C-alpha cells in the first residue's frame, strides 16, 4: 500500500523530469527560438544623491543578461564604477556609483547604455541630498511619523468621552461612520497599491504580490476572529467591541505603514517638500482614523478609565507603524515591500469593515440601510474626502 503511494507521488514527477530532458535535448526548440535579439529590459530603481556623487541601483527586468557599458548624465558621458559586475543576470541588481557635480534642485537625467545601445533612463525632477542612515535623519523620520501618524490617531481617540455621551440611538450612526471611513481608507489603499504595481519590476510580478498580501490579511484576520469568537463569550459585546477596535487599529496601522513608506521615500528622493501645511493636512486626515477606532467602543464601554490602556494601545498599534514606515521608506525603499504592506493594510481594513457591517445587520440585509446608517456611512466618506484636500500638498 505504502509503495503505491510512493509510486503515485513519484510517477508524475519523474515523467516531468524525463519530458523536460527530452524536450531540451531533442525537442522542437527551434520553434521557440527567434532570430530577433531579445529585448534588453533593465530599469533604474533608485537614485541616491550624495555630495558630488550619484549612486544608481539598476535591476534587470528581462529574461536575458544585460551589460551596462556607458552612462550618460544630462547628455554627457560620465565615468562610473559598478558593483558587483557590469553584467546583470535576470532579476539581478547592481549599484552604479559616479562622481558628478550635480546641482541641488535641478532636474537630472540619467541614461545607461547597454552593449547594444539600448538606453535605460531615469528622470529625477529635482535632485536633493538623499538621507543617509544617520542620527539626525533618523530623528527627522521619527518626528515625521509622530506628527503624521501617532499624534493624529491619539487626538482622534480623545473624542471617545464625547462620543460616549451621545445617546445610544446615535450608535448606529457612529458605527456606520466608522464603516464609511474604513471603506474610504481601504479603497484609497487599493488604488495606491494598483499604482505601485506599475512600478514594481515585472519580473517580480506586482499583481501577485498584491493578491497574496490582500487575501493573506483577510484570511488571517478572519481566522483570528473566528478563533476568538470561540475563546471569548460571544455574547459579551464589550469584548467584541474591543476586538474590533484592535482589528481596526491593526488595519489602519498596516495602512499607515504603507503611507509612511510612501511619505518617507518621497521625502528622501526630494519628490515632496513636507511643508507644515502638508503635515497639518495629514494630521487632520488621520484624526479620522482615531475616531474610526473608538466608535465601536462607545456603546459598550462603561468606564473609560478602566479601558484606557486598551485605547492607548490601539492608538499605538495604528500610529507607530507610520514611524517605522517612514524610516524604512526614507532609507531603503523598494516598491515591492510598499506594495505588500499596502495590500495587507487594504485587506485588513476591508475585513474589519465587513465584520462590522455583518454585525449591524439584524435579520435581512435590507435592515442595513436605515437612514441613520446611510447618513453615517456617507458622512464617513465625506469626512475622508474633505480632509483629503489638505494632503494634496
Amino acid at each position, binding site marked *: 500500500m505504502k509503495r503505491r503511494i510512493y509510486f503515485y507521488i513519484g510517477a508524475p514527477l519523474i515523467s516531468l523530469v524525463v519530458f523536460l530532458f527530452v524536450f531540451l535535448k531533442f525537442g522542437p526548440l527551434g520553434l521557440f527560438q527567434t532570430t530577433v535579439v531579445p529585448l534588453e529590459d533593465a530599469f533604474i530603481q533608485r537614485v541616491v*544623491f*550624495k*555630495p*558630488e*556623487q550619484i549612486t544608481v541601483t539598476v535591476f534587470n527586468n528581462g529574461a536575458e543578461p544585460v*551589460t551596462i*557599458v*556607458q*552612462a*550618460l548624465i544630462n*547628455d*554627457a*558621458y*560620465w*565615468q*562610473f564604477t559598478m558593483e558587483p559586475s557590469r553584467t546583470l543576470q535576470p532579476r539581478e541588481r547592481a549599484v552604479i556609483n*559616479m*562622481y*558628478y*557635480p*550635480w*546641482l*541641488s534642485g535641478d532636474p537630472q537625467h540619467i*541614461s545607461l*547604455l547597454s*552593449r*547594444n*545601445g*539600448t*538606453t535605460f533612463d531615469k528622470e529625477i525632477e529635482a535632485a536633493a*541630498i538623499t538621507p*543617509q542612515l544617520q*542620527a*539626525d535623519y533618523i*530623528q*527627522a523620520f*521619527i*518626528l515625521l511619523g*509622530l506628527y503624521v501618524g*501617532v*499624534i493624529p490617531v*491619539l487626538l482622534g481617540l480623545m473624542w471617545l468621552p464625547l462620543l460616549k455621551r451621545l445617546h445610544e440611538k446615535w450608535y448606529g450612526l457612529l458605527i456606520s461612520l466608522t464603516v464609511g471611513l474604513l471603506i474610504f481608507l481601504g479603497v484609497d489603499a487599493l488604488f495606491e497599491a494598483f499604482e505601485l504595481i506599475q512600478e514594481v519590476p515585472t519580473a517580480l510580478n506586482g499583481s501577485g504580490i498584491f493578491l497574496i498580501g490582500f487575501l493573506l490579511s483577510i484570511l488571517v484576520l478572519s481566522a483570528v476572529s473566528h478563533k476568538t469568537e470561540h475563546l471569548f463569550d460571544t455574547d459579551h459585546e464589550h469584548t467584541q467591541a474591543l476586538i474590533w477596535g484592535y482589528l481596526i487599529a491593526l488595519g489602519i496601522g498596516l495602512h499607515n505603514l504603507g503611507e509612511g513608506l510612501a511619505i518617507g521615500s518621497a521625502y528622501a528622493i526630494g519628490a515632496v517638500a513636507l511643508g507644515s501645511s502638508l503635515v497639518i493636512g495629514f494630521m487632520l486626515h488621520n484624526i479620522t482614523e482615531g475616531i474610526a477606532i473608538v466608535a465601536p467602543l462607545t456603546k459598550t464601554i462603561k468606564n473609560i*478609565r*478602566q*479601558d*484606557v*490602556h486598551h485605547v*492607548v494601545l490601539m492608538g*499605538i498599534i495604528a500610529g507607530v507603524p507610520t514611524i517605522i514606515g517612514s524610516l524604512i521608506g526614507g532609507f531603503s525603499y523598494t516598491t515591492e515591500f510598499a506594495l505588500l504592506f499596502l495590500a495587507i493594510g487594504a485587506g485588513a481594513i476591508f475585513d474589519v469593515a465587513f465584520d462590522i457591517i455583518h454585525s449591524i445587520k439584524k435579520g435581512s440585509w435590507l435592515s442595513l440601510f436605515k437612514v441613520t446608517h446611510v447618513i453615517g456611512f456617507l458622512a464617513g466618506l465625506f469626512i475622508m474626502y474633505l480632509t483629503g484636500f489638505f494632503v494634496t500638498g
Partner: protein
Amino acid sequence: MTKKLNIIILSTVILVILLVMLFLSKQTQVKRSVEESMGMGSMQSSVSKNKNPAQKAQEGFGPNGEVKTKQSINPTAFLSTWNFNNLPPQERKKYYKETKRSDGTALREYWIYAADQEIEIAPGVFYPAWTYNGQVPGPTIRATEGDLVRIYFTNRGTKAHTIHSHGFHKASMDGSMPEDFVYPGKTFTYEFTAEPFGLHLNHCHSSPVKQHIGKGLYGAYIVDPRKDTRPKASRELVMVMNGFDTNFDGENEVYAVNTEAFSYVKHPIKVKKGERVRIYLINTLESDPLNSFHLHGNFFDEYKTGTKQDPNAFTDIVSFVQGERSILDVQFKFPGQYMFHAHQSEFTEKGWMGLFEVEE
C-alpha cells in the same frame, strides 16, 4: 487600583511623546541650520575627509573603458586614407584600379559593396550598421578634376541600397529614384566625370533615406582641382562628422567624427607647428538639423564646398546642415594640445570631440 494605574499609563505615554518631540525638534533644528550655512549638499562631514570628491566629480567626464574589438576603420589611419592607399598593393587591387588616359586624366575604378556589419562606436557600445565595404564612414574616393570615376557596386546587404554621389553626373547615375535601387545580391556600375573640383560626399539614397544614412552608408568624395593655385598642404585629414541613434528613438546617443566617440581624445592627432594642415570636413549627421566644428587656440581658412580656390572665411568655427562640407586650412601657431569639437556642447559631451597634438 486599575483606575490609578491607567491614569499613570496615559500620562506617562503623553509625557514621553512630548519629550521625544521636544528633544528631536531641537536636535533637527540645530542640524538644519548647520546644513544651510554650509551650502549645497555638504551636510555629510564624512565625505569631506575623502580625497576631494568635487575634483573627482569634475574629472569624471568621459567614456568608460576602451574600444577593445578590432575596428572596421582605424580612426587615425582613416584620416589620411583615400583610394584604399592604406592597403598593400596586392590587396588594394581588389578595390581600386587607376589607369592613365591619353588626355592626361585617369580612369579610376572602385569596387564597393554594401554589407551589414556590427561596429563598436563607443567603448563597449555596438551598433548594427549598414556599411560600404564593412566600414563607417565608407572608403574615401579621391579623384582629380576631369578623371573618369567608375564604381562597381554590389549589394551584399539585406535591403536595397544605392550610392548617390554629389557632383556633376547624369540623372541615370544619381542612385536616388526607385528604379535606381540595387536590391540584395544585385550589382550596378556608376560612372561619371569627377567635377566640379571640391569636397563632396556620397551616401545611400534608398528609402527611407533617414534610416539608410543613419545606419552608416556615407563617405567622403574629394575632387582635386587640375590646376591647384592654393598653398600646398603638408598634412591632409578626412573628417566625417556623424552620430548614431543606438536605441532608435530619433535622437543620437553617440556623436563623433569618423564614427568612434572620443577616439581622437584617447589618440590625439599629431601635427607639426606651422605646417599647413588641410581638413576635409563633411557633415553626415542624421536626426539633428545642425552640426559644427570648432578649433581651440587657432583659426583656419574655410573653402566652402572646396569649389573655389580662395578662402571664404577666416574663422575658428563652422556650422553645417546635413551634407554640407568645407575644406579647412590651419597652421597651428603654438605647440601643445588643442581641442576640436562640435560647438553644440551636448554633441561634444556625447563623443564628438578630439585633440590635436602640435609638436615643434
